[in-house]
């Protein structure tokens, strides 16, 4: 059964001007841009987890912030439940926020240091006028317990600095979930948490998903984590999506050379495993002046002439499996 499309992103683009002072711009005469996200498209279906995977600086975080409308896209479309939300403002945007929430990577910075846990969790309710007084408090208690901050009463009055990273991340989850959103963008939610506690956060997120039929866009640099949590996976490289498909397909039959390299580079906790080698040159180039054609071609061992001139578009190679590469 095909599920309903919850979020659709079409040719989304975000260029950031390189920060310069007014006079510097005047003198240098040209404005340079960081091409953070360059015309990406994908779909996320209701109740599924879409894993967006890429190395640092590939634009995955920007994509997350674009989807949640924290920053304005340069071009393209964001369609949420059939409605174009790309440029909505004001009340409509605030309404949109009830349905789409975000969890940030850094739990140490995403909470107001001067706000107690209870206040922070209750704040979305106040903002949207959902509940006040005792009812609000009750909802907050319930939510805190749900994310495992027990006893809720104790945590209610604490300040963020009195909490550990894992606990803070749970507060962030509670705050995002208290509005009963439909789509949650999770931007590397476990990367700053101790290894032994990561699984707990993942488990919590999966539990909430099942319970509320949530849709996740899960942003991570770790393919293993993505594999664990996602239904779909999109691989990003230098602002572009190079491969997209169902989890099983990506891991069993990766097409793009970059995906292949990523897969073999990931360490596995098994010393007996046969060590593979990857043929990949150099490091990720700057996104201010990205390579022409296929952005991966300077590092690709299969690169042909064509690759440096012509940008490959996403092509279907299998059912639900797309890749942007001239090899296919």
């Amino acid at each position, binding site marked *: 059964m095909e599920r309903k499309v919850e979020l659709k992103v079409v040719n989304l683009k975000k260029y950031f001007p390189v920060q310069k*002072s007014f*006079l*510097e711009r005047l*003198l240098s005469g040209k404005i340079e841009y960081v091409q953070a996200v360059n015309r990406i498209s994908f779909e996320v279906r209701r109740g599924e987890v879409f894993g967006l995977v890429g190395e640092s600086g590939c634009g995955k975080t920007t994509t997350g912030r674009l989807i949640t409308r924290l920053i304005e896209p340069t071009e393209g479309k964001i369609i949420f439940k059939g409605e174009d939300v790309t440029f909505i403002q004001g009340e409509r945007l605030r309404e949109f926020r009830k349905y789409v929430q975000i969890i940030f990577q850094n739990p140490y910075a995403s909470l107001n240091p001067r706000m107690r846990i209870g206040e922070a969790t209750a704040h979305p309710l106040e903002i949207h006028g959902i509940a006040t007084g005792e009812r609000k408090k009750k909802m907050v208690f319930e939510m805190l317990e749900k994310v495992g901050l027990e006893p809720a009463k104790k945590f209610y009055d604490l300040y963020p600095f009195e909490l550990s990273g894992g606990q803070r991340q749970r507060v962030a989850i509670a705050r995002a979930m208290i509005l009963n959103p439909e789509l949650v963008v999770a931007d590397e939610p476990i990367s700053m948490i101790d290894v032994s506690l990561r699984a707990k956060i993942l488990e919590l997120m999966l539990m909430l998903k099942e319970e509320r039929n949530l849709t996740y866009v899960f942003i991570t640099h770790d393919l293993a984590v993505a594999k664990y949590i996602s239904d779909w996976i999109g691989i990003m490289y230098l602002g572009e999506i190079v491969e997209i498909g169902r989890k099983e397909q990506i891991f069993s039959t990766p097409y793009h050379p970059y995906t292949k390299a990523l897969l073999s580079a990931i360490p596995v906790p098994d010393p007996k495993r046969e060590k593979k080698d990857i043929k990949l040159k150099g490091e990720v180039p700057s996104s201010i002046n990205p390579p022409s054609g296929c952005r991966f071609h300077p590092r690709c061992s299969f690169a042909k002439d064509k690759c440096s001139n012509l940008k490959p578009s996403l092509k279907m190679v299998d059912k639900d499996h797309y890749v942007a590469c001239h090899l296919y």
Partner: protein
Amino acid sequence: MASLRVYVIRRVLVAIPMIFILLGIVFFIMRVVGDPVSAILGGHAPQEQIERIKEQLGLNKPILFQFFDYLGQLLRGDLGRSLIWGQRPVISEIWDHFPATLELSICAFLVSILVGIFTGIIAATNFGRFFDHAFRLYGIITYGLFIPWIGIMLQLIFGVYLGVLPIGGRIGTLMEPETITGLYVLDSLLTLNMESFISAIRHLILPSLTLGIYLSGIYTRLTRTHLIEVLNKDFIKSAWARGLPKRTVIFKHALKNAFIPILTMMGLQFALLLVGAVLTEITFSWPGMGTLLFERITYRDFTTVQGIIVFFALIVITVSLLVDVIYAYIDPRIRY
């Protein structure tokens, strides 16, 4: 090198609105609160004479026009003439007094840097121990010292009770060396005039100690914090781990890196040096810019005061520019 030039030009361009604004502030304050005409005419002038002078000085125009007139005049490099006494050109008043201030400032600056960096290094390398606390306290106390008070105390001790050092003036009677740079110490050295040299140094000791001690605390603190910060950096750990000797690690690696923020602060603190110089000059009857400014303010010599402020603003900006350029020069990470 061409890029460095572009960088300097860019910095200069940024500095222009700064001067403009400062000048504006001072100009308006002085025009709104004071009346330059009475300053020229002294006590009792008939109305028509006041009108005549106003006409002559363009003071009957709206204030904004006056401001633009003044700016135009500045652009031609003309600071105007003093309103009082000889009505000398402001620029020559400034040149008469500036070398004294420069000489004092340089000496005080050297004292403060030497003392400050020395104590800062000791504090940082003894982190958490006695010398650290002691020099931190030194930093705090010196910053709170009131210049005239230190000055007076030094005058009392060395000038009055011990009687070993002069408490005012720049040099002994008729000992002025030939003017080359206007800095007596330098000039007397250049002309090999030992008598003048010693006299000039003797006169310099107390004022530059006063100002130097006051400023040194800031450098103690700065050196300490930045050195501690740098000493905790990985590259210092890495230097230790490579077995480099202590002197190399502290001076070559740590201090040089710590010096970059200190340099920036030096640029910022330069204003403080000028402030300190004003008070020191007045305490020690040092015939410099501070004394001139103070004297002319009491006489309401608007053009001179304005001129001095423009001059100070130019110095402040030049120094910050210089600091930026030096900064860019020593730190390869800066891309112009």
